């Protein structure tokens, strides 16, 4: 399936079904990553239950240095 991640269309294998699995697929280790799925900001515990579907929009953000 094709998902819009941070503004880029990315092809994801069909076995990646949840946001948690997507993080693992992308090999993201940052424990403070925050995910917005189709406009809903997810708590950490919701990553494993948020189901992905073709055409979904995902934002993955983190904290960076700033003033």
């Amino acid at each position, binding site marked *: 399936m094709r998902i819009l991640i941070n503004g880029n269309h990315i092809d994801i294998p069909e076995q990646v079904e949840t946001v948690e699995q997507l993080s693992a697929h992308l090999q993201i280790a940052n424990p403070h990553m925050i995910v917005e799925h189709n406009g809903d900001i997810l708590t950490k515990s919701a990553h494993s239950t948020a189901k992905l579907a073709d055409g979904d929009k995902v934002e993955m953000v983190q*904290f*960076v240095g700033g*003033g």
Partner: protein
Amino acid sequence: MLEINGQTFNSRLLLGTGKYANLDIQNEAVEVSGSEILTFAVRRMDIHNPNDQNFLEALNLEKVSLLPNTSGAKTAKDAVRIAKLARASGICDMIKVEIIGCTKTLLPDPMETLKATEELVKEGFTVLPYTSDDVVLARRLEEAGAHAVMPGASPIGSGQGILNPTNLFHIIDQANVPIIVDAGIGSPADAALAMELGADAVLLNTAVSSAVDPVKMAKAMKLAIEAGRLGYEAGRIPRRTATASSPTENISI
């Protein structure tokens, strides 16, 4: 002690985490500054390089409170969304409202800042809006429930110091919440002046991160803020004409 929404802090220096040459220098500067509140921004991850070293990794999160900003927001709606993203991390509930209304001067949009402050207070955040040094706007932000108000000394990153000490004085004089002078501080003298005017704290970033020796400047800022605060509490003498310091009688001439 600095108190923001019931939380107390020994340090009156809030330090930004942007623009350090590397994380080692940043972490040493943070340590030396004694700062207990650090600001940072929320940005998209590079999903092709998701595990580049992140500035949070080397920090002791037990020792510092995190104050994310809403930089990048142009509207109250953007700012509220960024604040909610930051809170979803589960490691902070303070938010610095930063809504730039002028790309040339980086000055904040007062209307959107007020709107975002109202909304975020309702949402249960500890809200610290960055604002221009307008006396009435500072009061409106306090009335909207801001837990501290953060007027700029001069434009962000400009290092111009305090351009309008009179306005800052009146903002501080009328406030019932902490006033944190944020942005534009260039030197320890600027930070000390802010504190001598009665500010509760100073927030700065570039003055330290872009100094020739950021770690030494972090220490200088810490000392300047402590000195300025002590001077404020001690009460300076009024400006007047000359008065002799030595006795004027029994001069042996």
